[in-house]
């Protein structure tokens, strides 16, 4: 399964069973994409994390 990168329009490969909010990396522009819908499959550029929340 493939989806178009919203940044560079390259094809991005998606795993068999993508999960909502999963992060994919575009092989072309190295941008991080977030799965925002499963049916239909839609991705968007992932927001920047505010900071590292690990303690």
């Amino acid at each position, binding site marked *: 399964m493939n989806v178009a990168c919203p940044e560079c329009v390259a094809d991005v490969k998606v795993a068999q069973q993508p999960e909502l909010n*999963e*992060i994919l990396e575009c092989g072309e522009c190295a941008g991080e994409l977030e799965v925002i819908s499963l049916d239909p499959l839609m991705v968007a550029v992932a927001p920047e994390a505010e900071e590292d929340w*690990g303690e």
Partner: protein
Amino acid sequence: MSDEITVVKCGGGLSAHRETICQDLAAVAAGGPVVLVHGGAAQLDELAAQLGVPQRRLRTPGGSSSRYTDPATLDVLLMTMAGRVKPALVASLSRHGARPMGLTGMDAGLVTARRAGAHKAVVDGRTRMIRDDHSGRIHAVDPAPLHLLLDAGLLPVLSPPALGTEGEPVNVDADRIAAAVAGVLAERRPVRLVLLTSAPGVLRDPEDPGSLLPRLTVSAGSLGEADARGGMTAKLQAARAALDSGVSQVVVADGRITHPVREALAGAGTRIEKAAPFESGNV
């Protein structure tokens, strides 16, 4: 009655020793003010299993790992901390003559926290945007309600969660609550902090109970010579934060012995000390 406040942190892993710990706490509380901070991770896992709520870990890009506190887990956390672990402690302390008052960080806005914003983490092997995690970092501790209760002879029994900026429960680490509470109380009165654990103290080699370090020097850049893994790292970071806030004495000690708090105050376990500025080579 001593003016010095004793803050004791007791993890859920010590529940088998609740009666002896509470008996000892009540004895200490008869001589001066005491605050008890408790966790309950083991009991949380137990109730989550009873209710069929899966427990997952978040691994952040920074490499740290934490409990994924989704809404269902937050509900289990509240029932565990406020409904199971705390009432058992309050009942036991009462039986031993203390006057406990059970609190979470939400009560009176005692412990406020900033909830984690949207962030990336690895869950079950996959990287995801996390938006429903109800964990966060301590923003502030209000010492006023604690001083009010202590001055009235009560023994606050405090646990997560904290109160978030939107008035919602936020899961924060209990060791850090203990350190932060000790720190703000130290602004007005001398405070000592005892972190009870299921080991003789901090060990050089976690596999060897004989490798107890009677003293451990921590600095801004180092947790000293301890082979600190997992839970002990968090405990030592909390210890260091408490010392930085002016807490006069921090001890990591064994919660499984007969008089765990009094022994810790008398020299058992590991006393944590701050490196003098000239000693700290690796800041």
